[in-house]
Structures are given as structure tokens and as C-alpha cells.
């Protein structure tokens, strides 16, 4: 029995040789770039490679490396210097990448509110940080529970992510050698489809220590004698191993559509098998094992092999292994067709080397980007196909150049990803592009009119400058861009830290200006926000026009409901009483509704006080109209005939030094001239600018910059926009390493 059901890839992040992010990776793929690093003798010597080793004719002075494996933003994740230094770079880099992938998906906050599972895999023991520094680490505590163990054992890779990112679904490490990524995907998919989790993180981190060293190709016949991986080629001579890390964020497709997520591609199905014992040896591959994995996957997807226009192969570039893999895949095709040349194949190992446990995710992200852009990209170094496989009579052709990916009969483009592991576990996944009607549905819809509130934050001033700069460059570079989507994504889906820039923007130019200014700001980091007290001291009756503005505004549902409720209750009041006057009734309903709307947006006060009519308001906050308090208010209003705020009582009820005040109207005695500003205090209404939904944005900006929070889900409960992929947090690059 197989489980069907599509998944949506809603976020991704990667660090591969030659590419610190997915955009750079895609550019390299389109350019047909091989991201190999040639090492000098000095570099090799510095890495500890002996003269004798370097001088061997079989020594290959090449590696596939990623940048800055010794750098980490420990402070961001609340990790001490000592712990960071002891921690495997595979764990550290995966923390940053997983956070980036969740930001890319717009799910940093949401992932914590639902069961989110983590399925993660790490590189081998013998190329690990622990192995390299074993003597040093062994001198200190290294038993169960030690920093050495928790920072380096594979048991803690997924659980570290779950702890630091507050993810409460199952968190487990997955290890099946080179097929680990696909198997992690398979387990994550299964957990989503049975409903154990609502979101899945599939992560892989294979970082070799030391990284910048070559290898002796004579040590193992599967190693390339010159550093190049020539998958499917007749002159294939072996593979080269490298470092890389990547993360995918997945949801059930129906949930992604419901939540208006940006979907990069679909996962139609996955399957995993093991070869069992029917093969020549433990490390050998098996045609039946591989073929069955593909057969299960396409069956589960409900498609035919001929629906796959492209298969990303395991493609290690070994002379014997490549034809066997193709023969296995061909067996599945030949059950249903004798057609030739109907399916493109490729191997990202020709670009990146073999990333072992991360190899499958490299393949998955390559195919995701191909489907997203509807482009085929070349597999390198295959001028002539391996003669041990009859390409001419097969369904397969090696993709040789970057070109648009033609659709077959207008059907959605689909691809397969094949992954094999030493030890015999095989994985296969079927992916598809997002159908055109889903892309169009999401693209449609009117832009929510501005102005828009936006708040970007970071852990430090330095990081905020970098973050704002990154965002400014991105916004400036976009041709098809909506300000409402940008603000919605940043406000709703990014974490909120203490150091902030915030503002009200009307259009793209405003937004770029705000971000550029923030990227150069030298403002000091704000102190911690004090509790806020609200002083309700309306200086005049609420104008009918002002009420109408609020009632009509799409973000003011709470105002409308409360105003109508309170105003309607007033029908019970004796019309001859002073408190029954239309302006009194309207003003009281207005002030209570205004407070309700602020509360719906998450603006919370430790206390509400007031003067004049405002004192009555403060007594009625949170009370239903049926409460005796409302009946009592009538008598109080009758007594308080003066509805204008008592100037001298402007600071009534505000504790000194322990709270900030938010005034309904700025007390006249506190106006300093020029810009209205009362140090440490805020106001909802400014002279010459009656309170309005638009005017409140200025107050909300001050509220945010002061370090206080909004309930963004409540703010966007009406008139939401769309989550869009945006640049991710610029982690600092501080060095943590066990130096000799």
C-alpha cells in the first residue's frame, strides 16, 4: 500500500561549492559551472598534507569546498563561545541554513505554532570535526552529555534544530550514507501525509574537516584521478567528494494553498528500498533495488515513467556504476514504452562533486529550480556517452546545454530524482512544477492599498544595517514587486528582535528610502521597553467623519464591532439625560472601540487611566454592554459635564520611572513646539491631525521602535497580502574553531 498526496516545497536554503545561496547555485547551473577548487602546495602544506603525500603522482590537488565553515553567529542562537568552538560546523551551519529556509518560506513564527518535524542528516564520522580534533577533544570531558558529545554526535543534529528553533514535531537524524537526504525526505513526507506533523524540515549537512585538502586517487578505485566527475561519459573515471549543506521546508500542498504560501515546486511522491542481500557485496549497488524504488515512486505519484521529462541521477561518474544505474531506470521505462530519447538526464555531481549525505538535497534543489524556472541545465563533461550503456536505444539523453524545458502536450513538467547509498538503501522522488492555474491564482488579486506599516529587526545594530541593506538592494532590483507583499512578509513571518527600523511607506521609493537609511543608521541600540500606561484624555468629541473613517477601514473590524455594540446599547438611555447627547454617545463608543482595535492589534497596556470622559472610558474597558458598569457610567457622565480633558491632570495615574504613557491626545502643557514629542511618551493624536486609521500608523511605528510588540496575525486578519521569498537574515561571521 502506498500513500498518495502532493507536498509543496515552500522554502529552501543551501550552501554549496561556489554558491552561498540558491540564487548563486542557479546561476552556476545555468552557466554550466564546475565549482572545483584547485589547491596550491602552500595551502596543502598548511592543511597538514605531507610533502610525500603531495608528491605522489596519484595525489589530486582539488576539492569541492564551501566558504566560512569556521564562522558562525553564535550570539543569534544564544550559544556561548566555548560551546560554539566545540560544536561540529555541520550543526552550526545547519542551524543558520534552517533558519534561513524558514525565513525564505515565511514560516519562522508559524513553524513554532504547529507540529513541525525535523529530518536531518550529517556527513561521515571519518571526515568530521570530531575525528579531526579527537585528540584535543578527548583531553576534556567527552562522555555522555558533554559539550564534545552533544556538539558532535549525530544523535543531536535534528534535536539541536528543534530546540533552538522551537519545533515540536518529531526531530530525528537519518543516516543511510549517500541516499540519506532522499530517505530523510521520504520519512518527512510520510509524517506529513499521516498527519503527525503540519510542516517538515528536511536538512542535510556534510562538511569535511579538513576541507581544503586533496586526496590520493589510488586509495580507492571510485575516486577520480583528476578531480572531475564525468557522469555518464565514456571517459568517466570516478568521483570526487565535497562539502555542502541544504534545507527544504515542506507542507501538504492543500495547506500551502490555504495559507497562501509561495510554492516553488511540488513533491508528488517518494519511495525508499534496500537491496537486501542479493548482490555481490555490501558496498555494491543493485539493479533490482534501484528499479523498485523508482517503480514505487511513480506508482505512488499516480504517473507513468513517460511523464518524467527529466531524471536527476545519482550519477557518480564511475565507469561501472553509471551504466548500472541507467539500466535500472531503463527497466522501469521499458515496462510501458520502447521510445528512445524521451527523457533528459543529468548529475549535479558534475558541478559540485559528491556531497555524500547532502548529495540528494543538492539534486532535489537543482530539480526544484529547474521546475521553477522551466529550464533544463547541462550535465558536464559528457561529450561521448558511456559505451557500456546503449544510449541510442534507451529513453535517455544527457542534457548538454541550458535551454527552456519543453512541456509534453501541455502537461505539467515532472522530474525524478534518484539517489543510492553504500549499504543498499535507494531513494527516488517524483517532483512536478506548480500548475499554471495555481501560479495564476496566486498572482491575481489587487494590491492592498497603502500606506503600509513595516518593521524590520535584528539582534544588533550592525546586523540591522546589513539586513536593511540586503533588503534595499533586493527591492531596488525587482521588476515585478508589490509593497503590500513585502511588508506583510516581513511583519508577519520574520522574527522580531530588539533592534529595529520601522516606518510607514506609500510606495516602493518610500520603502527603498527607509531601508537605505536604516542600512546607514548609527542610532544607538534601544533600551528595554518599559510597561505602557494608556491615558484616555480626548480633547473633543469624536467627529462623525472620524468614526466613519474607522468603520470603513479594512483593518478595523474590532473597532466597527465594538462601536456598533456600544452605540446601539445607548438606545436604552433616557434621551433627556445629558449623557444621552449624540456627541457624548458617539465619543464614548468611539474611545472604547479605539481601545478594542488597538488590543486586537496586540497593543497592550499595563493599565488604562483617564480624565474627564476618559476616566469613564477607563472604567468600561473590557466590560460588556450588559455589565452594570455601563449603567453606572450614565450617572458618571451626567456628573462629568465637562468633556474636554483637564490639562493639569494630563499625567494623572502615570507612575514615574517605571512606565511609559501613551496619551490619547498629547497634553497641551507638554507641547514643546515644532515636532510634537514628549520624551519617552507616545500619543495617538497629534495637533492638527485628528486620529485616523492612517494616522495611527505613526503611533504604531513609535510603538514598534520602542521595542514593543504588535500581534501581526490580528493586524492582518483582514486584508492579508502574500508571503513572498525575500533575502534572509545576515548572520554575523565570527570565528569559532579548535585551533592547534
Amino acid at each position, binding site marked *: *500500500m*502506498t*500513500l*498518495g*498526496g502532493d507536498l509543496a516545497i515552500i522554502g529552501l536554503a543551501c550552501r554549496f561549492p561556489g554558491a552561498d545561496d540558491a540564487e548563486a547555485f542557479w546561476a552556476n547551473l545555468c552557466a554550466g559551472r564546475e565549482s572545483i577548487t584547485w589547491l596550491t602546495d602552500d595551502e596543502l602544506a598548511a592543511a597538514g598534507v605531507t610533502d610525500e603525500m603531495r608528491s605522489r603522482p596519484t595525489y589530486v590537488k582539488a576539492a569541492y569546498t564551501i566558504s566560512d565553515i569556521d564562522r558562525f553567529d553564535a550570539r543569534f542562537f544564544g550559544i556561548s563561545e566555548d560551546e560554539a568552538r566545540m560544536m561540529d560546523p555541520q550543526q552550526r551551519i545547519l542551524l543558520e541554513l534552517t533558519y534561513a529556509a524558514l525565513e525564505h518560506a515565511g514560516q519562522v513564527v508559524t513553524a513554532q505554532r504547529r507540529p513541525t518535524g525535523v529530518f536531518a542528516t550529517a556527513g561521515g564520522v571519518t571526515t568530521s570535526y570530531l575525528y579531526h580534533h579527537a585528540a584535543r577533544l578527548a583531553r576534556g570531558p567527552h562522555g555522555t552529555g558533554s559539550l564534545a558529545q552533544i556538539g558532535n554526535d549525530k544523535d543531536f543534529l535534528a534535536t539541536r534544530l528543534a530546540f533552538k528553533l522551537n519545533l515540536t514535531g518529531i526531530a530525528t537524524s537519518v543516516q543511510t550514507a549517500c541516499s540519506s537526504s532522499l530517505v530523510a525526505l521520504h520519512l518527512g513526507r510520510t509524517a506529513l*501525509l499521516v498527519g503527525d506533523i503540519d510542516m517538515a524540515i528536511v536538512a542535510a549537512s556534510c562538511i569535511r574537516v579538513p576541507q581544503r585538502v586533496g586526496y590520493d586517487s589510488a586509495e580507492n578505485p571510485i575516486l577520480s584521478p583528476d578531480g572531475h566527475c564525468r557522469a555518464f561519459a565514456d571517459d568517466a573515471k570516478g568521483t570526487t567528494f565535497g562539502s555542502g549543506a541544504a534545507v527544504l521546508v515542506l507542507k501538504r500542498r492543500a495547506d500551502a494553498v490555504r495559507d497562501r504560501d509561495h510554492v516553488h515546486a511540488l513533491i508528488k511522491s517518494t519511495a525508499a528500498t534496500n537491496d537486501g*542481500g*542479493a*548482490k*555481490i*557485496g555490501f558496498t*555494491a*549497488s*543493485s*539493479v*533490482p533495488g534501484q*528499479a*523498485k524504488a523508482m*517503480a*514505487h515512486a*511513480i*506508482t*505512488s505519484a*499516480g504517473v507513468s515513467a513517460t511523464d518524467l521529462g527529466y531524471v536527476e541521477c545519482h550519477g557518480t561518474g564511475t565507469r*561501472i556504476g553509471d551504466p*548500472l544505474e541507467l*539500466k535500472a531506470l531503463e*527497466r*522501469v521505462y521499458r*515496462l*510501458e514504452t520502447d521510445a528512445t530519447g524521451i527523457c533528459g538526464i543529468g548529475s549535479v555531481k558534475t558541478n559540485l562533486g559528491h556531497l555524500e549525505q547532502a548529495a540528494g538535497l543538492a539534486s532535489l534543489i537543482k530539480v526544484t529550480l529547474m521546475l521553477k524556472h522551466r529550464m533544463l541545465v547541462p550535465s558536464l563533461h559528457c561529450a561521448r556517452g558511456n559505451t*557500456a550503456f546503449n544510449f541510442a536505444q534507451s529513453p535517455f539523453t544527457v542534457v548538454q546545454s541550458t535551454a527552456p524545458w519543453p512541456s509534453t502536450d501541455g502537461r505539467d513538467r515532472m522530474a525524478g530524482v534518484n539517489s543510492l547509498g553504500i549499504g543498499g538503501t535507494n531513494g527516488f522522488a517524483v517532483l512536478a512544477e506548480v500548475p499554471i492555474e495555481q501560479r495564476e491564482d496566486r498572482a491575481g488579486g489587487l494590491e492592498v492599498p497603502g500606506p503600509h506599516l513595516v518593521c524590520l529587526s535584528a539582534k544588533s545594530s550592525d546586523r540591522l544595517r546589513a539586513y536593511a541593506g540586503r533588503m534595499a538592494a533586493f527591492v531596488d532590483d525587482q521588476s515585478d514587486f508589490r509593497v503590500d507583499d513585502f511588508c506583510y512578509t516581513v511583519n508577519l513571518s520574520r522574527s522580531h528582535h530588539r533592534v529595529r527600523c520601522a516606518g510607514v511607506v506609500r510606495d516602493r521609493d518610500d520603502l527603498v528610502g527607509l531601508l537605505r537609511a536604516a542600512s546607514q543608521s548609527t542610532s544607538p541600540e534601544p533600551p528595554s521597553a518599559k510597561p505602557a500606561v494608556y491615558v484616555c484624555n480626548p480633547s473633543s468629541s469624536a467627529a462623525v467623519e472620524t468614526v466613519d473613517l474607522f468603520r470603513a477601514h479594512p483593518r478595523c473590524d474590532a473597532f466597527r464591532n465594538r462601536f456598533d455594540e456600544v452605540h446601539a446599547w445607548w438606545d436604552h438611555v433616557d434621551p433627556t439625560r445629558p449623557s444621552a447627547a449624540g456627541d457624548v454617545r458617539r465619543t464614548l463608543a468611539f474611545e472604547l472601540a479605539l481601545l478594542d482595535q488597538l488590543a486586537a492589534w496586540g497593543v497592550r497596556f499595563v493599565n488604562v487611566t483617564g480624565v474627564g470622559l476618559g476616566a469613564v472610558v477607563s472604567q468600561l474597558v473590557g466590560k460588556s454592554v450588559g455589565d452594570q458598569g455601563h449603567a453606572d457610567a450614565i450617572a458618571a457622565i451626567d456628573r462629568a459635564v465637562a468633556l474636554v480633558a483637564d490639562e493639569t491632570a494630563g499625567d494623572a495615574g502615570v507612575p514615574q520611572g517605571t512606565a511609559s504613557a501613551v496619551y490619547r491626545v498629547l497634553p497641551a502643557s507638554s507641547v514643546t513646539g515644532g515636532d510634537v514629542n514628549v520624551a519617552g511618551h507616545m500619543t495617538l493624536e497629534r495637533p492638527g491631525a485628528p486620529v485616523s486609521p492612517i494616522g495611527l500608523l505613526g503611533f504604531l511605528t513609535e510603538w514598534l521602535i520602542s521595542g514593543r510588540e504588535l500581534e501581526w496575525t490580528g493586524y492582518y486578519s483582514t486584508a492579508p497580502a502574500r508571503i513572498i521569498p525575500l533575502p534572509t537574515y545576515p548572520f554575523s561571521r565570527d570565528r569559532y574553531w579548535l585551533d592547534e
Partner: protein
Amino acid sequence: MLKGGPDRESVLAQVRAELASIRARRHAGVIEIDESTRLSELGLTSLDLAEAISSLESVFDVDPFAEAVAITSITDVRSLCDAYLSCLSPSGDTGDDLDRELRAIRAQRGNTEQP
């Protein structure tokens, strides 16, 4: 080179002799080799096995691993003998267990659940 029609016993004898010869050159002890002996029990490296196959190709004048048989599917002496016999006297019956298994998997498509 082996002359005459294919004979299971003679193929087995050649295979046993070749494997024993390689073990002797590696100074491995004498062990009983029969059809049920797994190749992994023989203590030979992959290079040794490649050498054995190369020799047997010369003896039988056929190379079953060029197209028909995946080398990785050979687990024991019996399957090695079967590989040469399949080339020496093809029966026309592919008897392909793998195809049957794959068709059975593909036939499950009607049972795929769509949550």
C-alpha cells in the same frame, strides 16, 4: 576455450577451478566450493573477482556481464554459473523475475490512497 555444448557440471567445474586457483595464489587455505558457496565467503577482493571473470570469459568465450547480466547481482557460485549458462544456451525465456516484480509494483496504482 570450452568446446562442445553447454553442460552445467562442466561450467561448475571451470568456475570452481578458477576460484580455487585465485585463492591458492593469495595463499588462502583450501575450502570446499560448491554452488551454494557465497562469493563473499571466498575472501577474494573485487579485483580478484574481476580477474576470475576475465579468465572465465576466455574459457567460455562469452561475457554475460557486457549487456545481459548485472555483475552486482552475482551473489554465489550458482548465480555465476547461471550467468555463463544463460549466454551459452539462451533458453528464450527471459525468466526475468525483476520484470515480474516491477509489473506487480506498477499494478498497485489502483490501490494508491489519496488522503
